[in-house]
């Protein structure tokens, strides 16, 4: 197509040239001798006219180009004015521009989570600081970010809950985390207290993990490169669980152990959009300490959410449940009394214990929710001391950064304590600064 156009162009130019030459040559052909001098003058005149015309044409073209450029600039200016865009130059010169000294400081937030409780199992009234958490986070460089959480409570004082480094740009959808952090176990075991939808952590989780899954170690997470959400985490830790970590620390453990004494974890999880507004998330957790099969734990978790995204009174619900089976060999368990010496005989013993919870929470209006929770807990060693707890809770958010929650627990115990009872807790939580634990807190 282009070559055809070029050919047509050439032909036209050739025709014009022939016509021009004919015009110029015509006087010579008509009267070659008699008017030779006159013809020279006319030819010079024609040439001069032609050059003048060409010059004028060039000037006109230049003017046209300049006008077009000016029009384009004007159009851009009108667009900028219409869109409210800023001009590139400021009206007045500014003074020296000095970067603020705090420009590179991390994001900082603080949570105050306080509560007032009473009950007949632990008679009396109590104000307590459930959690005072300082959270800081920031990118470290193009490849790494870091975060830390320093938490204090009435019972345990202040301590570093998390201090971790997380990669941000590894290939093959891999993310590596290292330091002290909540191991990726189930759904709520790695949540901070203030993230929970209840005033307290389910007793089953408290007993199995000793609170949150605080761990020192390293984790690798892989996001499958497919359209369906599949995420797998594997990690290696000194141990998993707040109480376990504290026990090691308090007993003067120096942190060195054989490789088989480390805790190894794997957790796959996936997600299904059952409809535009209904979705299901399921996951499994397995971790083990290989040395003498000291500990192995299996867990499953499932969360069904209805998120209609409407503005009516009913705004959705969450059904969530987790269940764990723990098998652990505990040393220094009392085996009996030596009849000869009267001394206590200690030995190791394996305990198979399990526990879990299920809850339902409905969201009403923009700022309210109500829910119920059932929990079954066993001690992981020694007498099982089974506890069943039925809870009801109601939450009000006066704003996005303030929360009031009232919860009643009906507790049924057997074993050593053997008492039934109740507890009522009023929780008041405020968030200073932009507090977010990101995707994990969804």
């Amino acid at each position: 197509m282009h070559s055809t156009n070029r050919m047509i162009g050439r032909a036209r130019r050739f025709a014009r040239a022939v016509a021009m030459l004919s015009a110029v040559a015509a006087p010579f052909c008509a009267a070659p001798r008699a008017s030779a001098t006159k013809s020279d003058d006319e030819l010079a005149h024609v040439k001069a006219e032609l050059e003048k015309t060409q010059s004028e044409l060039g000037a006109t073209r230049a003017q046209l180009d300049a006008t077009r450029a000016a029009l384009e600039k004007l159009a851009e200016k009108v667009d900028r004015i219409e869109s409210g865009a800023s001009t590139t130059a400021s009206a007045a010169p500014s003074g020296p521009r000095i970067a603020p000294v705090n420009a590179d400081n991390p994001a900082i937030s603080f949570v105050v989570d306080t509560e007032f409780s009473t009950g007949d199992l632990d008679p009396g009234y109590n104000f307590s600081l459930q959690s005072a958490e300082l959270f800081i986070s920031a990118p470290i460089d193009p490849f790494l970010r870091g975060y830390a959480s320093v938490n204090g409570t009435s019972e345990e004082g202040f301590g570093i809950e998390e201090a971790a480094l997380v990669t941000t740009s590894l290939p093959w959808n891999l993310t590596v985390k290292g330091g002290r952090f909540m191991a990726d176990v189930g759904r709520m075991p790695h949540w901070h207290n203030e993230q929970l939808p209840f005033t307290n952590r389910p007793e089953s989780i408290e007993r199995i993990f000793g609170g949150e899954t605080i761990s020192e170690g390293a984790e690798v997470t892989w996001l499958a490169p497919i359209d369906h959400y599949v995420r797998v985490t594997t990690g290696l830790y000194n141990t998993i669980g707040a109480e376990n970590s504290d026990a090691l620390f308090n007993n003067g453990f120096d942190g060195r152990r054989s490789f088989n004494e480390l805790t190894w974890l794997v957790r796959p999880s996936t997600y299904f959009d059952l409809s535009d507004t209904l979705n299901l998330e399921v996951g499994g957790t397995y971790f083990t300490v290989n040395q003498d099969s000291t500990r192995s734990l299996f867990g499953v978790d499932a969360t069904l959410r209805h998120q209609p995204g409407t503005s009516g009174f009913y705004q959705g619900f969450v059904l969530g449940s987790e269940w764990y089976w723990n098998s652990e060999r505990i040393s220094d368990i009392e085996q009996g009394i030596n009849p000869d010496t009267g001394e206590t005989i200690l030995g190791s013993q394996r305990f198979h214990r399990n526990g879990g919870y299920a809850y339902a929470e409905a969201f009403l209006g923009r700022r309210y929710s109500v829910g119920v929770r059932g929990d079954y807990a066993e001690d992981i060693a020694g007498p099982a001391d089974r506890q069943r707890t039925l809870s009801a809770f109601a939450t009000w958010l006066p704003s996005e950064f303030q929360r009031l929650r009232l919860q009643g627990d009906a507790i049924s115990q057997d074993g050593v304590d053997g008492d039934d009872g109740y507890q009522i807790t009023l929780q008041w939580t405020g968030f200073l600064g932009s507090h977010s634990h990101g995707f994990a807190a969804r």
Partner: protein
Amino acid sequence: MALQLVRAAFSIAALLLGAAQPAAAALRVVATTPDVADIAHQIGGDRIEVVTIAQGSQDPHKVPVKPSFVTKLNRADAVVANGLGLEHAFLPALLEVASNPKVLPTGPGYIDASIYIQPLEVPSSQNRSQGELHPLGNPHFSLDPVRAKAMAKAIAEGLARVDPAGAESYQSGLARFDIVLDTKIAEWEQLASPLRGVKAVSYHQDLVYLADRYGLQMVDTIETKPGVPATPGHLEELIETMKRDQVKLVIREIAYEMPLAQTVAERTGAHVATISAMAGGLPGTTGYVDSVEANLKALVEAVRAAPGQ
């Protein structure tokens, strides 16, 4: 003859090879809101494949963080965001685990539709006692169709940056979208003329750009402060103000509950207009142009129904 046969064979082979080559894969684009999704689609056409995170009827500040969006972001060539912090409730959390550095805000695939917008209501001081303020300014500029032209320009440039081979196509798409929008903007000026000078109350503080374009006078909000629910005391003050200032229009964004807006309107003799802060929120609307038109019609209808208008 032999030469012709060879030429014919080459031609057939070339045709077959051409047919065997897969069509160029469309650019995978994740858009945060239906507005930027529709504008990107109008510009990109078949060159792009757009997935949207937020739905039109949702409150953009409360969009659920679904894991299925993580995989979309993981495989995306580009993210088109409204910008000015509108997506703060969901996009950072999703990008945190998406393992796709190129669509992070610092990456080449992050297209911010707000880059040519001069923000309004930029807080002079950031303090939560003033409510949930957006530190960069009010991010609801897509309600103004003239500013949408600036959004479209930013999106077209962003798409061309990510997909330089399609730069001409995106420029043509932008020109087509501008023509459609310019025609509609002229019509909407006429349609919305009854709004000029009308005093109104909105549920949330998100109509500053719409009011700026069509001359509405926003008096107050049903929310006590941005993002802070109405208190009884604030509602009493609001009703007194509306009666005193003869405010006859209550604008309820569809993501916010109707009963309270209706109560305020009934106590002040005003009429309620339901609009959508994002495209596709109102029934019967799908794209950005539909949505702007439906919003303006709803506002004009309520103004005409109000006594004394």
